[in-house]
Every structure is written in structure tokens, then in C-alpha cells.
């Protein structure tokens, strides 16, 4: 009995360890990037456009379960969230569930980081996760 319990605990540990991404597959050549602004950009307005670049995958609104698609999430001034859970929705994690491919955001003057994370119809990142490089910008 003790042995069984230990095995179950071990199995649970292995399973949770394995869950490093969601269930929706992404092609290896999927490429997500911030098309604008560029890394290091100095922006002279606190309201500016961010354009979402995505190659070899498509955009679909949240709730639409279609293979090799997802919707954009813009992570502002925060590290990447866990890859095996729904992406949080707050001021640091902006969801674009209507299938938008660009946005305008307003940020206080200072240095900020931006990063894109694609996620499936359920807001869970793909497997493997499709993530952009994290860029740093300065708002003057």
C-alpha cells in the first residue's frame, strides 16, 4: 500500500513535470515576432502601435478550435507566464481574442519590455510554445 502510494505520487510528479506546454501542436517553423517597434526603439509618444508578426501559422479568434492557429497575447513588463496554463488576463498580459494582428497601447514614460506569446482557442500556449523575442523600448 505504501509502495502504491509512493508510485502514484511519483507518477503525478512525472506527469506534472511533463506538462510544460499545452495540447495544441505548433509547427517547428512557426515564427512569432514584434514587427514594430524594434528592439531598443525610443518612442516619443506614450501611445503607439504594436504590430504582431507571425509566419507559418494563422490567426483565429479565441474559442475557434482550428489546427495551426492561435491568437496573440502581448506581455508588457512581465516575464513569460507558465506554458501549461491559461495565460492570465491583466494589465501585463493583454489578450487579442478577436483575432487582431496589431494594437495601440499607452505606456508611461520610461523603459518597458514587450513580448508576444501565441495561444490556442483556450488561451493555453502551444506545444512547443510560440514566443517572440523580448524587446526593450523607451517611452520619452
Amino acid at each position: 500500500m505504501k509502495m502504491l502510494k509512493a508510485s502514484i505520487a511519483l507518477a503525478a510528479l512525472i506527469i506534472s513535470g511533463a506538462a510544460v506546454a499545452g495540447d495544441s501542436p505548433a509547427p517547428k517553423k512557426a515564427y512569432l515576432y514584434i514587427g514594430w517597434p524594434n528592439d531598443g526603439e525610443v518612442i516619443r509618444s506614450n501611445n503607439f502601435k504594436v504590430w504582431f508578426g507571425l509566419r507559418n501559422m494563422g490567426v483565429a479568434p479565441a474559442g475557434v478550435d482550428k489546427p495551426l492557429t492561435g491568437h496573440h497575447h502581448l506581455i508588457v513588463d512581465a516575464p513569460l507566464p507558465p506554458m501549461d496554463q491559461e495565460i492570465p488576463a491583466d494589465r501585463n498580459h493583454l489578450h487579442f481574442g478577436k483575432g487582431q494582428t496589431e494594437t495601440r497601447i499607452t505606456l508611461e514614460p520610461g523603459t518597458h519590455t514587450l513580448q508576444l506569446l501565441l495561444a490556442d482557442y483556450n488561451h493555453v500556449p502551444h506545444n512547443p510554445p510560440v514566443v517572440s523575442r523580448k524587446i526593450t523600448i523607451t517611452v520619452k
Partner: protein
Amino acid sequence: MNKFFMVATMLVALIPGLAIAGDSPAPDNARVYFLWPKNGTTIKGGKFWARFGLQNMGVAPAGVVKSGTGHHHLIIDADLPSFDEEIPADRNHVHYGKGYSEGRVELPPGRHTLQLLFADHGHFPHNPPVYSEKITILVPAE
């Protein structure tokens, strides 16, 4: 009977005249445009990614019925097609039905025009139609 036929014929004749755009509404502030290339760009080799800009609407793959969405079509070296029919699919009318927001384009040397036309789940332009400015690019001879 003859009279019925005449009325029926007249109605059929009127219907296509009315259908100047598809049935899917687009917001008045919807805008589609080229992020890249810009009008007048010279592209050596003629191979490039065209980046599609879209404001105040979303992208959805073809076949997905969702208001305020559609998918991109790139019109190469051709005029805008009729707005009350499915956009043709040929080398001058490239469909991005998988929900792509950019497309790989390869063009031979010469002057070329590019224009974007957004369309709904059934490949019909919206009402009002959402299309970009027609731009001209140049691929120099090698």
C-alpha cells in the same frame, strides 16, 4: 402565366444590381493596409514577405463565421474584383484562408501592383468592402 414570368425575370434582373457588396458588415473605421512593402519600394530579387496591416477588425481562417473578422487576399497585378462575388483564386488573387497576416511573394523583374482585399468566411468582401491602397513596387532586372 406570361405576366408572372415577366415579373420573375424583372426581379432576377434587379437582384444582381443590388448586390454591390457581401452580407458581412464591416465597421466604418476598418482599415487594411501594407505595413511592408511601402508604395514605390524597389525589391532586389523579387522575393519578400508582404506584411498585412489591419485595424479595427480581426483575422479568422476561411470558413469561420465570426462577426468583425475575415481573411486577407493579395491582389497582384490586377484590378479589384467584383465585390458581390467570391474573390477568384488564381495567381493574381492569392487567398490567405489559414488566417495568415503576412505572405511570401515571389515576383519576376518589372513593375508590379499589390493591393489587399479583406473578405468574410465565404471569400466575399464585406459591406462596406475593406481594401487597401493599390501600391506599386519595382523588381530590378538581375
